[in-house]
């Protein structure tokens, strides 16, 4: 067992066994998510709903793969003692994995796999007031960026991340809040109350700005207080690594807006062609 600044006290053998069990459980959860997706795809095909884009399956599987990398194995172990490794895991878990999972369009896949009745239940749930509130881009952005900003602002709050109970819960929160945000701003899944593009753009801009401010603040206070010695390096990883994922998010967002505008352009350009198609269909 490693003994980092955040893991005070001796590490008895029982703890090592417990850690192994936790690692296995975590890997099983991610493998389960990957398997569920494939099973749902198969179920959809059996219902005659074929033609699922390969890129969605790829996004989901890579997402779960990065999930394993960030929560089990060498990186997760190093994250206990090194803030830089922790930051790498956080970038994966809170930002990249959620984006990839959302691009896998699990909601759409689920709707293809289940009966129309179950689908209607799901649609009612997705359209309900609490979901609508939580999936509002600004609310989702607040849920994703708010707690993260607090955690990295203050060493006392940061210690919560290495607490045996609050630590794993916070990691679950990172994935969940990140996924909610990604769904709110670029989710391909059905969203009965999808916000206007400008609002989603503002939400993305705001979270990028918050991320940059928190990163620089961490860099500024790195030498003070009870931050670990590599806080400076971790802050730079947060800043530039965050940028890399944000650019990916921006490209996805702009591609979607570009495509939507293109469809509108084509509709406007060829009303007669549409009319012909319509009459051909009727005949």
């Amino acid at each position, binding site marked *: 067992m490693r003994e980092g600044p955040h893991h005070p006290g001796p590490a008895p053998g029982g703890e090592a066994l417990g850690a192994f069990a936790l690692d296995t459980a975590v890997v099983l959860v991610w493998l389960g998510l990957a398997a569920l997706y494939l099973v749902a795809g198969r179920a959809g095909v059996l219902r005659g709903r074929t033609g699922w884009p390969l890129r969605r399956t790829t996004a989901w599987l890579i997402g779960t793969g990065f999930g394993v990398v960030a929560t089990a194995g060498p990186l997760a172990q190093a994250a206990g003692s090194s803030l830089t490794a922790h930051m790498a895991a956080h970038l994966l878990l809170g930002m990249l994995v959620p984006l990839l999972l959302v691009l896998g369009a699990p909601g759409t896949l689920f709707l293809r796999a289940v009966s129309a009745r179950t689908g209607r239940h799901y649609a009612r749930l997705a359209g309900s007031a609490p979901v609508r509130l939580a999936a509002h881009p600004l609310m989702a952005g607040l849920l994703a960026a708010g707690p993260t900003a607090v955690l990295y602002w203050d060493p006392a709050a940061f210690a919560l991340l290495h607490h045996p109970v609050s630590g794993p819960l916070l990691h679950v929160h990172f994935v969940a809040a990140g996924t909610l945000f990604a769904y709110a701003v670029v989710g391909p899944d059905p969203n009965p109350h999808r916000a206007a593009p400008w609002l989603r*753009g503002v939400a*993305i*801009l*705001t979270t*990028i*700005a*918050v*991320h*940059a*401010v928190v990163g*620089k*603040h961490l*860099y*500024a206070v790195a030498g003070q207080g009870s931050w670990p010695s590599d806080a400076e390096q971790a802050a730079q990883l947060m*800043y530039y690594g965050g*940028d890399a994922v*944000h*650019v990916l998010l*921006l*490209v996805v967002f*702009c*591609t979607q*807006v*570009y495509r939507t*505008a*293109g469809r509108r*352009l084509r509709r406007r350009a060829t009303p007669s062609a549409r009319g012909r198609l319509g009459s051909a269909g009727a005949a």
Partner: protein
Amino acid sequence: MGFLFGCGIIAFVDEAVFHQLLHWHHFYDRSTPAAGLVSDGVFHAFSWFATVASLFLFADLRRRGALSTRRWVAGILMGIGAFQLFDGVVQHKLLDLHEIRYGVELLPYDLAWNGAALAFLVAGVLLVRRTAHRSVGDA
């Protein structure tokens, strides 16, 4: 729409050349007041957004057959000039975010910085005026 792209380009030139290559000013000098830090964060976000969005807008103009390369270049020049002037006046001077270089007499640097910004801005405006005349002449 080249304006946005120009903003993005110069923001990255600033980051790449002055921050990374010359190490004149670090990306953060730890003496920034809170307001400056927030403004810096917003501008960081904006520069990324501008860079990505402007390339998609470029594609959109092409798709509509409304692309004028001259106007686009003019936009880039104006974007570079406006952003650099803003950086030089508001970020460096009013908000005290960071200086261009430390431990030297600042005046020549500031003059060169803001002078170059003005030159870009004027070149962009002149180019736009020329294309405007041309399209009026064509019509």
